[in-house]
């Protein structure tokens, strides 16, 4: 039986050309950056979730800021915007809807990782 095809976003969740250009089109650096993100993003999301569930708004600001910085490397606008909103909520001590926004962030990051895995496959299988 054939396994279901993995959902593909065809690089719609990040700006491939800006990302690669920013790293000087250096394949080694591009591969390392994607791999590094894929191995750290779940920890970063977990920190944000913990900050929200414990009501630690300073940690929310710092952890959302860190994830925002990471996704900015890929010019992943949707994930960036949501992370920025959570950072601002932490900074402004606003707790309304943080969990809902976190759920949106998780979806955006999951889509981004699928896209990045596809791109990684493409450049490593050349």
């Amino acid at each position, binding site marked *: 039986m054939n396994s279901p095809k993995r959902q593909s976003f065809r690089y719609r969740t990040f700006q491939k050309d800006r990302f690669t250009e*920013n*790293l*000087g089109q*250096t394949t080694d*650096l591009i591969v*390392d*950056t994607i791999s*590094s*993100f894929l191995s*750290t993003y779940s920890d*970063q999301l977990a920190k944000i979730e913990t900050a929200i569930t414990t009501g630690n708004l300073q*940690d929310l600001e*710092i952890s959302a*800021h*860190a994830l*925002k*910085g*990471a996704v*900015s*490397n890929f*010019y992943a606008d949707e994930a960036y915007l949501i992370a920025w909103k959570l950072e601002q909520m932490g900074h402004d001590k606003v707790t309304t809807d943080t969990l809902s926004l976190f759920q949106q962030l998780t979806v955006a990051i999951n889509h981004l990782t699928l896209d990045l895995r596809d791109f990684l496959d493409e450049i490593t299988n050349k």
Partner: protein
Amino acid sequence: MRLPINKKKKILIVDDSAFDQRLAAKILSSREDLDPVCVSSGDECLEALKENNIAMILMDIMMPGKYGTQILMDIRKTHSPIELPIIMVTAKTDISDVVGCIESGANDFLTKPLNFEVTMARILYCSPITR
């Protein structure tokens, strides 16, 4: 012939994000004469300054505990901008952050996402020993 490790210039990367540390270190490693060393906090930064011969610091502004600008001011009490160039790095882009860094004694400023060419150019410009 590879440059021996003791001939390389140590560049201290101060960032609480493992991802950002790794990216900055990879960029710096493209030059054979640079040896990136990573720490995660202001306290670790000050300890590293005591123990290692650090030629330059790349420091994130926003970290848990002490902010980068506060650590910068602490370092400037004992190390001048010429003795120890410090480049602040941040995803924040408010003009007040840039001005704040410069007024606190930073030699220069980089915004995330780090651009490979801009990062190398600023490092080379800031430090006469890497020219």
